């Protein structure tokens, strides 16, 4: 087990390093300096600016500095807005994005699993068809389309809930709904199909024969095994939710990290782009790492596979 964790941890570090390197060289592949376009900067000012951001050093020195900064989690100042550092932006935006992401994944998990279980228990019944149609629709409707529809209906037409910003629980309902529907649909479909598979197993028949209550069979015997595939895709879902926050935060004017990221792209603010990308990737890779560990803890069979090298 310890060996497996160490191996996975090592992979994680390499992945982050690859992302960081990729980001660095991609950003430096852009011709010109970020200050070229600014009006009214003469050469002296420009040289000064470049020295301030360390852009006058040779590339390998810059790369070394950059890696050092990443290791110490200091991403330097923003270019468009030099008074604030990338760290400021992250510490301001991240808690909000994190909150949105966590609420979303919890809502998606709970409702998706319930929907999937009910559909599986009523296999080929009306509830099953309705639930699965809703699920395929949920997968097919892009989150930004859903978000605009939701705003139109709930906030504009019915005036039920506020449409923008992030200040009270009421403000959180619509963005969470828009963001959680897709993952919920995926979870519901997956839960349903693995639940159907599990329900035909012998130990379920055994449990029924013992006279256990249906609730106990579902929750204690069936669901535990049926949820394994859901755990597997949790990492991918988190990635989807994370990128989903970009548009959702833009549409709902939520001052999270996604909003800063989108703004930094439009402003070509390279330190912010690099900082947020590396930050996002690190979090994501770390989540994938946790999911893998959780999976191997939940399913003892994984350990054997890891020993044999897949």
């Amino acid at each position, binding site marked *: 087990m310890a060996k497996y964790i160490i191996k996975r941890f090592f992979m994680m570090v390499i992945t982050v390093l690859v992302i960081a390197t990729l980001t660095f060289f991609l950003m430096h592949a852009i011709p010109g300096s970020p200050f070229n376009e600014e009006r009214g900067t003469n050469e002296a000012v420009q040289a000064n600016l470049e020295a301030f951001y360390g852009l006058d050093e040779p590339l390998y020195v810059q790369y070394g500095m950059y890696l050092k900064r990443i290791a110490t989690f200091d991403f330097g100042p923003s270019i468009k807005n030099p008074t604030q550092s990338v760290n400021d932006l992250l510490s301001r935006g991240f808690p909000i994005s994190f909150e949105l992401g966590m609420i979303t994944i919890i809502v998606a998990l709970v409702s998706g699993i319930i929907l999937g279980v009910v559909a599986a228990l009523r296999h080929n019944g009306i509830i099953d068809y309705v639930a699965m149609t809703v699920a395929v629709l949920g997968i097919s409707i892009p989150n930004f389309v859903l978000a605009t529809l939701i705003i139109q209906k709930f906030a504009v037409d019915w005036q039920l809930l506020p449409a923008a910003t992030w200040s009270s629980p009421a403000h959180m309902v619509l963005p969470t709904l828009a963001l959680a529907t897709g993952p919920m649909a995926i979870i519901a479909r997956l839960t349903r199909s693995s639940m159907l598979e599990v329900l035909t197993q012998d130990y379920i028949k055994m449990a029924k024969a013992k006279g256990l209550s249906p609730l106990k069979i579902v929750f204690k015997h069936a669901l535990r095994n049926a949820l394994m595939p859901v755990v597997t895709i949790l990492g991918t879902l988190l990635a989807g939710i994370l990128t989903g926050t970009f548009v959702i935060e833009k549409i709902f004017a939520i001052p999270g990290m996604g909003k800063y990221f989108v703004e930094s792209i439009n402003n070509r603010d390279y330190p912010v782009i690099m900082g947020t990308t590396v930050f996002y990737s690190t979090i994501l890779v770390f989540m*994938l790492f946790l999911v893998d560990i959780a999976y191997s803890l939940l399913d003892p069979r994984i350990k054997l596979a890891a020993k044999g090298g897949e």
Partner: protein
Amino acid sequence: MKQPKTENQSSSQQIPDEWFKPIKKDREKAENVVRPSLSYWHDAWRRLVRNKLAMSGLIFLIFLSLMAIFGPVFSPHSASDINLPNQNQPPSTTHFFGTDELGRDVFTRTWYGARISLFVGLAAALIDFFIGVIYGGVAGYKGRRTDSIMMRIIEILYGLPYLLVVILLLVVMGPSLTTIIIALTVTGWIGMARIVRGQVLQIKNYEFIVASQSFGAKTSRIIRKNLLPNTMGPIIVQMTLTVPTAIFAEAFLSFLGLGIQAPHASWGVMANDALSTILSGHWWRLFFPAFFISFTMFAFNVLGDGLQDALDPRLRK
């Protein structure tokens, strides 16, 4: 199945024994095949046709492709001509889907958007197919060190959040259709490679592969002629499911302002333009692109599900 000559049957009393005549044994006839044999593809097609949801998805996609090719021809309006006096007209007989804030015809623009979405989707699926099949095929077939090195690379790439990579590439290379397709395929082929590798690992020890090898066939020939045809089912399903992902990504990026640039129309661009006017009640400007994005993705998803059931009956619930 029938046992007419046994004693203890009540039903045999109603059927007189004379009715049973021994059939002349005819060696020639016994070998005859009465029904034409169904090939794998024929059988899969039959199963697919029976799946109503998947078929309606297929029909919608055929309709959409036809409209993407011929739709702009039917319309007297161009997709990019600006006609300011005509701005924000609701749907009517001259403008079926209304007009946008620059007076452009939403009907024509929707079909141009269909062209772009379908093109992006198909291009991404095809490129993923080529890279993924070669990579996965080689990794799975070669095995050992080659496989473990190739799979380590995939593991690292798999950790990359793909939309972030796509956004980075778009920032560096500048937004255009080509960039979007390149960016989408940079990480998109991984899923395909994994599936192909898994399949190849399963099949490569079968006798017909060993036979091929013993005849001295080259690796590339074995992959092309023996392994691939037997892994086509999962590959096709994966391709069908890649298309909606790519369409979503294009719309998502265009919506963020990173995708197709004006004056070109894509569904994501149209939805993004319409977003600011949603409060003024020009519902048609958002409705049509949103409807077509969702329905196209829906159609590809149900078709992919249907193909999965049709091509791999073992997996059916």
